[in-house]
């Protein structure tokens, strides 16, 4: 098990390093001189040269890359030259919106999606099953940001239950901050819950045909008991993999949904950075997103192996 985890961790680290290399190389291709940008067009060539030296911009690419990696390991992502603040600090501030939003959306989709999937599987072929599956089929087809707009129309404009957008910082009013995240997380959760319900149903239907369920029935359990005690646990395995992938893509999905609700999350930070061509900020923010995605996948793999010992033996999923 430790060996398995170690091998997965090495893969994770390698992915991150190659990703960092790709991002660094892509953004390094761009024309434009950060030193010139900071000092403005009226700066003398000498002062630009001095600042370039100071910022280490004249060093060869591989040295700057290693310097960037080394800095990140120590929590230093460089200085944003448009916002004049450390990139790490800017990103950290925004994660206070993006992370709770993703987690809340994930929780909602699990709490809604899994029971519906189980219910549909238990009532297979009945009206309830059809109703749930039609809803799920529609749910996966609805763009989450558009669903966010609809939610705003109904719950913020029509019923006035929740704010239509904007965000109150956590330390000012925690409850208001939470309320601001409810509609966005519902918007993010809809497609995820639909997918989870479908996967859960399929997995449970598959499992119901297995020998161990028959054995459990033969021991005298009712079908409901057998499925509940033995089926759901086994059916959760494929669901777990998908949960991991989903969370990874949820973090990326927040970038789009933040726009609907004017939330000051990582996405908004990245857009400002792109518009102002703040490459150091774009670089730091994208690598953080990729870190979130790959770390989730790593955790999923390891959890999966903990739950299902059969998988530890195989090197590739």
């Amino acid at each position, binding site marked *: 098990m430790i060996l398995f985890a170690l091998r997965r961790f090495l*893969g994770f680290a390698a*992915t991150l390093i*190659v*990703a960092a290399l790709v*991002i660094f190389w*892509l*953004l390094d*291709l*761009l024309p434009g001189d950060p030193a010139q940008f900071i000092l403005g067009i009226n700066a003398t060539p000498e002062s630009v040269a001095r600042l370039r030296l100071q910022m280490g911009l004249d060093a060869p690419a591989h040295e700057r890359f290693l310097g960037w990696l080394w800095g990140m390991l120590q929590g230093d992502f460089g200085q944003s030259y448009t916002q004049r603040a450390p990139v790490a600090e800017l990103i950290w501030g925004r994660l206070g919106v993006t992370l709770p939003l993703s987690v809340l959306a994930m929780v909602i989709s699990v709490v809604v999606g899994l029971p519906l999937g189980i219910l549909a599987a238990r009532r297979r072929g009945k009206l309830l099953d059809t109703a749930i599956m039609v809803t799920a*089929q*529609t749910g*996966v*087809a*609805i*763009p*989450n*940001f*558009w669903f966010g*707009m*609809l939610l*705003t*129309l109904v719950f913020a*404009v029509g019923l006035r239950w929740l704010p*239509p957008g904007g965000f109150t910082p956590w330390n000012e009013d925690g409850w208001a901050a939470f309320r601001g995240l409810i509609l966005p997380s519902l918007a993010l959760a809809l*497609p*995820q819950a639909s*997918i989870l319900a*479908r*996967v859960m149903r*399929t997995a449970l*239907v*598959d499992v119901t045909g297995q020998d161990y369920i028959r054995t459990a029935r033969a021991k005298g359990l009712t079908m409901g008991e057998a499925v509940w005690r033995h089926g759901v646990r086994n059916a959760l395995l494929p669901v777990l993999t*998908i949960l991991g*992938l*989903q969370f*990874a*893509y949820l973090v*990326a*999905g927040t*970038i*789009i949904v933040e*726009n*609907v609700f004017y939330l000051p999350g990582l*996405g908004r930070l*990245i*857009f400002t950075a*792109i518009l102002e*061509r703040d*490459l150091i900020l*774009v670089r730091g923010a*994208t690598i953080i*997103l*990729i870190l979130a*995605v*790959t770390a989730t*996948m790593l955790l999923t793999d390891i959890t999966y192996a903990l739950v299902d010992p059969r998988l530890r033996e195989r090197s*590739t999923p």
Partner: protein
Amino acid sequence: MKRLLSHPSLVIGLAATLVFLALGLLSLAWTPYPIEQIDIPRRYLAPSAAHWLGTDNLGRDMLSLVMAGTWTSFLVAAVAVAIGVGVGVPLGLAAAAWGGAVEWLVLRLTDFVFAFPAVIVAILITTLLGPSAVNAIIAIGIFNIPVFARVARGGALSIATLDFVAAGRLAGLGNVLIAWRHLLPNIMSLIIVQGTIQMSLGILAEAGLSYIGLGTQPPETSLGLMLREAQQVFLIHPWLTLVPGLSIVLIVIALNIAGDGLRDAIDPRLRQGNSNVLA
């Protein structure tokens, strides 16, 4: 063909998809009004005989915009699928035919690309080249590559052990010919089914990217871009977001139903699998 048509979901899904595709294609030759025709006095009109779906914030005909936007959505998603198939399938086949180091490399590459959600790729390309519909195509296409590589490898591995492949090897065929003559034809159905799934995901992704300004740019239009343009006024004029949003939903449902039907029609054994997890 008759066998295919006996699956009602396939027929319904395919018919609905074709209706939208036809509307999109028609927009290339004709739309009720030119989509770039700005007519401020006639803005925010409700649906009427002259404008079936009303007019937008610039007085443009919504039906014309939806038709043209549908075409962009289909085009972006289709080219992205072509990129995914064109690069991913050969990679997957190579992994299955050669095995060993080639397979390891392909699997690590797909793992690696999975770490880049389309949104992140789009962010990087936009920073590099500025926003455009081509960015959306590249970003979604890159995202499609590992999906098709995995599907092709999985399908090919299950066939590679069959007798006719062994017979081919005995006949002296190399890996390339084995992959081309024996593996590829047998996994086509898998690829077509995955293709419809990726089409619908691609249309959703295009909408998302254009909505946040990383995809299609004016004066071109797409369903996602219509939603972006409606964003400023959607609290007062919700109609402007309802029309393109519902169009996206209907197209994606049509494609998904067609895909499900196609999967059942081609290979009922696949019915239980659901690889569509990347939305």
